[in-house]
């Protein structure tokens, strides 16, 4: 050991003297950061849901005063938001834009990607921490600042951003005008987005480096748990798709504060007044740059969820995933294709037949790997010995919900159907089925699954079941009617929920039903939240590996100490060696060799002789054993 490790020892020494602040607030430990991301993200998820409940009330009972809450918001935000307890249409738009933004960028991405990724990935690959702990901390704090900016934006003059989460220009540029354009909601939105993008970029650099560099000896690519794969592809998507939106945000910021006209054509007449800018810009430029991010982004929302579900299903069925390799390659395929389909959100922006042909084809193509993934997950159930633990319930609930959401994406993939369905509630139904009973369920599965690792205690399984069945029913109660409303022509972002339109009169009766479903969905979250916090103290104490799982995170103590493992674990087998025919127990952990000369399953379903010492020689050569000059 030379100076390098001497230095490390020094650092190590420091750790024992960490104060409370450095331990729990400005921590560089991936587990603490993961939990920070998790709690903040879940809170934002709840907050975003709260915004949506207000909106659903307005849609269900347009023009009726909202009991109690309406008055409270009116007192806080003034008459611009609620007047006599009745929501203003501008405020509805604020809520809609912020619901979308918060759910996507402050809810799902931080929880599904950053929180689980931070907590679980290093453990699953047998690493002591993330590759760059300080950058990791910077990533979280950049996210926190972005989140605060978004929250504060409700209080600036004119209120928060209200041009949809898509922030289409020119609307976004002419909305919320004020003498000081810095102090407006849309400007805050842009600044917040820049912080959030920075956070995601730092995070994804860290994730990819960690996965490439810090895998334990023997953890070859095809022995990584599927969750790690999903996180890695997600990180690549964030890394390469987010910067164009950052560029676009800077441009829109310039449009707002410096009077440029990147996205504004000549000859605009707003409110009867010619709009005083140089002109010559293009609204479509914003859309291209936005969707270049936002389509990969939607896979960012689902891939970590799929990863969690993959791990949980292998554990809950007590058998290896069926066709692990197919899963991995499909995930990579999705990642690749997701960069070339973005214009399917722009079908009605005047697209000629050549471009339209291209994007319809790629969009339909991208559904193929998705079908493969769902098929693999479904077929993995076959032949299992299924145990309905709470994580497993959520994972199996996820499958049909994602299936319905994904399948309804296929009609939308066709330009001519878009003529009818674009911008209707059908679209809202499509993606909410994927992100709400889809990703959110996957998140719940992940929380219930890894909670014992993080806390050392398990969450209450009975209340977990209540949480699952209640949420499952209510989610469908909210989102299924959206397809019917969409088919009837109801459009999204309608403040009156369709009350003022003839063609939606037949489907209006769903609105109250959907509100009450959302309300009850909210009630069903109460047991979860209580369960979550109370189990820290009162949960049942469990062993280090309560689910009899195979992957490396369960080799560490619960909760893992700083540095995670006492000694470097190695991966001797594939990730999911459950119910091996020649092993008596129904699982053989990755960190233990299988009996010599037994058959194991390769990822693609082919069997091969197990080589207990199948550890890449190169990776056994840790830096210490390497000769150093």
């Amino acid at each position, binding site marked *: 050991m030379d100076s390098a490790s001497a230095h490390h020892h020094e650092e190590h020494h420091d750790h024992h003297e960490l104060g409370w602040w450095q331990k729990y607030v400005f921590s560089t430990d991936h587990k603490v950061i993961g939990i920070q991301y998790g709690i903040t993200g879940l809170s934002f998820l709840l907050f975003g849901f709260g915004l949506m409940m207000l909106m659903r009330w307005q849609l269900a009972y347009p023009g009726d005063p909202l009991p109690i809450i309406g008055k409270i918001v009116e007192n806080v935000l003034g008459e611009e938001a609620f007047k006599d307890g009745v929501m203003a249409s501008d405020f509805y738009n604020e809520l809609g834009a912020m619901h979308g933004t918060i759910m996507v960028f402050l809810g799902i991405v931080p929880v599904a990607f950053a929180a689980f990724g931070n907590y679980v990935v290093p453990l699953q690959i047998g690493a002591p921490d993330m590759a760059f702990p300080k950058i990791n901390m910077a990533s979280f704090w950049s996210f926190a600042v972005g989140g605060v900016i978004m929250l504060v934006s409700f209080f600036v003059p004119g209120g928060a951003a209200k041009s949809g989460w898509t922030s289409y220009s020119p609307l976004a540029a002419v909305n919320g005008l004020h003498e000081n354009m810095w102090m407006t909601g849309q400007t805050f939105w842009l600044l917040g987005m820049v912080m959030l993008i920075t956070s995601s970029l730092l995070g994804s650099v860290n994730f990819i480096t960690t996965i*490439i560099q810090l895998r334990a000896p023997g953890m070859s690519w095809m022995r990584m748990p599927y969750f790690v794969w999903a996180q890695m592809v997600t990180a*690549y998507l964030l890394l*390469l798709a987010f910067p*164009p939106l950052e560029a676009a945000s800077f441009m829109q910021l310039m449009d707002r504060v410096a009077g440029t006209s990147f996205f504004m054509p000549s000859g605009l007449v707003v409110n009867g007044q010619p709009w005083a800018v140089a002109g010559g810009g293009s609204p*479509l*430029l914003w859309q*291209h740059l936005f969707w*270049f991010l936002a389509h990969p982004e939607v896979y960012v929302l689902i891939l970590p969820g799929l990863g969690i579900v993959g791990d949980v299903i292998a554990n809950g069925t007590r058998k290896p995933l069926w066709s692990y390799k197919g899963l991995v390659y499909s995930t990579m395929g999705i990642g690749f294709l997701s*960069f*070339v389909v*973005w*214009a399917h959100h*722009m079908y009605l*922006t*005047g*697209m*000629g*037949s*050549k*471009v339209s042909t*291209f994007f319809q084809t790629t969009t339909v193509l991208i559904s193929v790997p998705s079908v493969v993934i769902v098929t693999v997950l479904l077929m993995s159930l076959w032949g299992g010995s299924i145990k309905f633990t709470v994580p497993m319930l959520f994972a199996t609930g996820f499958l049909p919900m994602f299936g319905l959401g994904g399948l309804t994406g296929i009609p939308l993939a066709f330009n001519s159907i878009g003529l009818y369905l674009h911008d209707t509630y059908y679209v809202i139904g499509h993606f909410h089925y994927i992100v709400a009973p889809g990703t959110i369920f996957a998140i719940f599965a992940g929380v219930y699954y890894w909670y014992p690792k993080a806390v050392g205690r398990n969450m209450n399984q009975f209340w977990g079941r209540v949480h699952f069945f209640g949420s499952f029913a209510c989610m469908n109660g909210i989102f299924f009617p959206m397809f019917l409303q969409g088919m009837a022509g109801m459009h999204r972002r309608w403040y009156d929920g369709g009350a003022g339109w003839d063609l939606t009169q037949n489907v209006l009766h769903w609105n109250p039903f959907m509100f009450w479903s959302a309300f009850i969905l909210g009630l069903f979250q109460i047991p979860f939240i209580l369960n979550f916090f109370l189990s820290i103290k009162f949960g049942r104490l469990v062993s280090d590996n309560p689910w009899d799982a195979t992957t490396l995170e369960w080799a560490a103590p619960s909760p893992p100490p700083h540095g995670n493992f006492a000694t470097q674990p190695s991966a001797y087998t594939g990730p999911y060696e459950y119910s091996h025919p020649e092993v008596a127990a129904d699982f053989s952990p990755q960190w233990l060799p299988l009996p010599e000369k037994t058959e194991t399953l390769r990822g693609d379903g082919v069997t091969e002789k197990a080589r207990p010492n199948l550890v890449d020689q190169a990776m056994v050569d840790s830096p210490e054993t390497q000769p*150093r*000059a």
Partner: protein
Amino acid sequence: MSTPSTHSQPGHENEHAAVTVHVRAYMLVFGALLVLTGVTVALSYFDFGSMQANIVIAMIVATVKAGLVALIFMHLNHERRQIYVLLAFTVFFACGLFFLTWLHYWDPIRLPH
């Protein structure tokens, strides 16, 4: 890539020599870049017939310069596979961003006259 990186084992004799070779390359590239900068400026006062031609030629020179920086200064002429793969994807998607943005612009819905 199986050959171990030359500059990962510090203090070696041949390491030292390798760095000296590098240094010579850096100086050559420095000269080349300065010359090419002059060339870019000079070319811009010469009309190649059309704006497109002028742009294309200026971009070719700029790409050569950028290539030199990337290959020699950034050591991309002998990097590891992982990094080439990453950059290949990046360049591909960046080109996609340019190309498809332009594609939409090029194929609008037109009313025949």
